[in-house]
């Protein structure tokens, strides 16, 4: 926690950086106060040593937040007769886990419900249905009073650092507000705590008396982060934390977020549309489309072996510096048209209206989110790597006449019932279940005969 932060009590960092080797990038950055005389920039080698590689996955981490079947339907009221004429199905039954001290990325186009999800978790909205288990409490149902202590644990960073800070409050008062509201520290210590927090995020602690307009966009985002850190949360919902910032500043904030995660073990739900930044920050990523999760997987599976045509299209649309540099550009999957309205979403699979491989079944049945790898789930009838989508829907047994009794159905049900990742998954090559035990046998199409027998009952 910031209080135990070794540098917490150090003298303000506006001293020349050359005096001692900086130990965190925030110290380097703190030296560039708004009007501070710029010292010499750090050498490239020391700058590198203060940055992070892509965050790695801890597969053993327990979930800090478990979201199950979360729904948010906003009522649409007619202006003429005062009654509800429909619902905007912003979030429609999503399930995921955020590992303790880890990060889950949530990506998708605008209007896919990713920001609404973040606002549900911070309980800025009360969900229509579903549960959000956090530390033994269901955030979806707790009352206002019971929610207050939980708000200390779940904090949020907003996208726009200009509108999320009150221009008439000093930075000190902005960061101190959560401390006062929740009585975290005695009144007399609020100021010193604020200064510590400013220092942690790489701002000059002497600047607590300034107003937001005196800071640049990147510095304002740091103020927002300091405010979120003030309550020492266990979970931070970061809603597009870098997309409003200049490119050169984005990397500063991303490194700061990685720093804070390593130091304080904060879990992130990282909401963004920039697939490349998400890839760097989040070892696990969920892709949303029109209120549903269509694919969720670890970094390697999602970015290198995407099985959902939407994920494939998204990835192919990202302009790629490296690709262009080595000549030629990646084949693009063009999505035609726009995202359909969430008021009246398409039947069956919601992506089918723009999907290059959609067939009849896609309009009739909504595909379940099936586990197809140790840490890989996808919701598609024709799940497969780009160019290798199966001809027959993998979900066909679910809709066959004898669906109730078929062992295939039970297998499909089993792999699509867990919120997190189960021990067994569907092997798309064989249609059988396979499990962790078989993992060391290599990448062959082993079917795990011992596992694919009579189905287990599922909940």
């Amino acid at each position: 926690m910031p209080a135990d932060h070794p540098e917490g009590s150090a003298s303000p960092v506006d001293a020349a950086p050359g005096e001692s080797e900086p130990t965190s990038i925030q110290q380097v950055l703190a030296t560039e106060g708004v009007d501070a005389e710029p010292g010499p920039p750090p050498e490239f080698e020391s700058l590198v040593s203060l940055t992070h590689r892509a965050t790695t996955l801890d597969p053993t981490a327990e979930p800090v937040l478990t979201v199950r079947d979360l729904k948010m339907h906003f009522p649409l009221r007619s202006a003429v007769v005062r009654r509800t004429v429909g619902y905007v199905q912003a979030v429609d039954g999503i399930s995921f886990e955020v590992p303790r001290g880890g990060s889950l990325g949530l990506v998708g186009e605008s209007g896919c419900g990713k920001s609404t999800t973040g606002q549900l978790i911070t309980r800025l909205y009360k969900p229509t249905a579903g549960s959000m288990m956090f530390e033994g409490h269901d955030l979806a149902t707790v009352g206002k009073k019971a929610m207050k202590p939980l708000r200390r644990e779940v904090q949020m960073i907003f996208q726009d650092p200009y509108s999320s800070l009150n221009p008439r409050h000093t930075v000190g008062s902005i960061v101190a507000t959560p401390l006062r509201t929740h009585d975290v520290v005695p009144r007399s210590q609020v100021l010193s705590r604020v200064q510590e927090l400013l220092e942690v995020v790489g701002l000059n602690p002497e600047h607590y008396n300034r107003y937001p307009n005196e800071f640049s966009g990147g510095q304002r985002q740091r103020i927002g982060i300091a405010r979120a850190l003030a309550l020492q949360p266990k979970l931070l919902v970061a809603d597009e934390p870098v997309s409003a910032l200049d490119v050169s500043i984005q990397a500063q904030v991303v490194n700061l977020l990685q720093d804070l995660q390593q130091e304080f073990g904060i879990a992130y739900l990282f909401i963004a549309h920039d697939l490349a930044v998400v890839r760097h920050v989040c070892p696990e990523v969920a892709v949303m489309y029109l209120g549903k999760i269509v694919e969720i997987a670890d970094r390697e599976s999602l970015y290198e072996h995407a099985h959902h045509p939407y994920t494939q299209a998204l990835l192919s649309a990202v302009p790629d510096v490296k690709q262009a540099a080595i000549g030629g550009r990646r084949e693009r999957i063009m999505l035609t048209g726009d995202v359909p309205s969430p008021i009246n979403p398409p039947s069956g699979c919601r992506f089918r209206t723009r999907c290059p491989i959609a067939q009849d079944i896609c309009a009739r049945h909504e595909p379940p989110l099936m586990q197809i790898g140790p840490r890989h789930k996808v919701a598609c009838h024709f799940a497969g790597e780009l160019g290798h989508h199966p001809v027959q829907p993998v979900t066909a047994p679910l809709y066959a006449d004898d669906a109730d009794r078929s062992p295939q159905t039970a297998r499909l049900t089993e792999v699509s019932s867990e919120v997190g990742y189960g021990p067994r998954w569907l092997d798309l090559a064989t249609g059988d279940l396979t499990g962790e035990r078989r993992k060391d046998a290599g990448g062959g199409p082993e079917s795990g005969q011992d596992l694919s027998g009579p189905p287990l009952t599922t909940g």
Partner: protein
Amino acid sequence: MSPGPADGAPLLAVDNLTVRFPTADGLVQAVTELSYTVEQGRTLGIVGESGSGKSVSSMAVLGLHDAHSARIAGSIKVAGEEIVGSDEKTMRRLRGNTVAMIFQDALAALHPFKRIGKQLGEAYLVHHPDATKREARRRSIQMLERVGIPQPDRRIDDFPHQFSGGMRQRAMIAMGLINDPALLIADEPTTALDVTVQAQILDLLQDLQREFNSGIIIITHDLGVVAEMADDVLVMYGGRGVEYGPTREILIHPQMPYTWGLLSSVPDVHADPNARMIPITGNPPSLLDPPSGCPFHPRCAHVQKVPGDLCRTILPELVPGPRGGGHLKRCHLVDPEEIYATEVLPEIAPDLAEVGADARADAGAGAGADVRGDG
């Protein structure tokens, strides 16, 4: 597709352009001694942070700066015609006809009370005074269809708010192209859009360029967009060009630490997970009181590699780099190529660095082409 108009002069030649804004706080040095050219059928990408002068310089091309509040020096020649100092009448003839601009925020750039068709038709009628309204409408429908708006004959009577973000951007491109301009300036045309829509718009721009053989300036902060779209790149910092050359040269062999910084600040979607995001420390310089010497020196992580106080005291010239081929750079570093390959690249793209190192070992000078094969 063949570059160069009939008389051999480039379509757009900006020479020593300087733009100053006198303000209560002092003189804002928005653009200083900027030079570049755009040939017909070619695309120039201008990259830089906010405040680097990229938008100001291209607005000067359209003569959009108020003569009272801006001091403009130097020369801008569009198809041989001088823009700087020309009167409003000349400018009105050129704007929308020879040079057109599409803006970042289509919702703000389109009039909210006027139907799309009316706004498109207006742009056409201004430069075709003899045309009838009916002709303007037909031409507008044609353009909307060309930019891929479904049912253009019906959507033409919509208001801008009835269009989605991608469709508004398309409508604005249609408006920009309705008079078949020789030069199109696109100021962050896709920044507000989702990646899938961005891909559609970029493809559309490329198609239209092939069709109309126009020159395009694309202003962006996204190096990925530049990599896909541009033939040449101009990197701007603090109102000056700091690196200029063919896109592949700039992206594979960047020679200016600011360009390195831009490249290392954006992760790649297929990058090696060992790649780092290395920020540029500090903030963009004040244009009221620019730093002495090289404008980038207060943020440059490689200042120490230059002997003496050169970076702080002397502004480097924009001169051809050691690789030639029209690659200009503004930097004092003696061997930027070596520093980039051995220090920067291994951190920001370890996979590419390895291939590059092998290629260097094979003494392959044109290593760029065979840097493939990293899966």
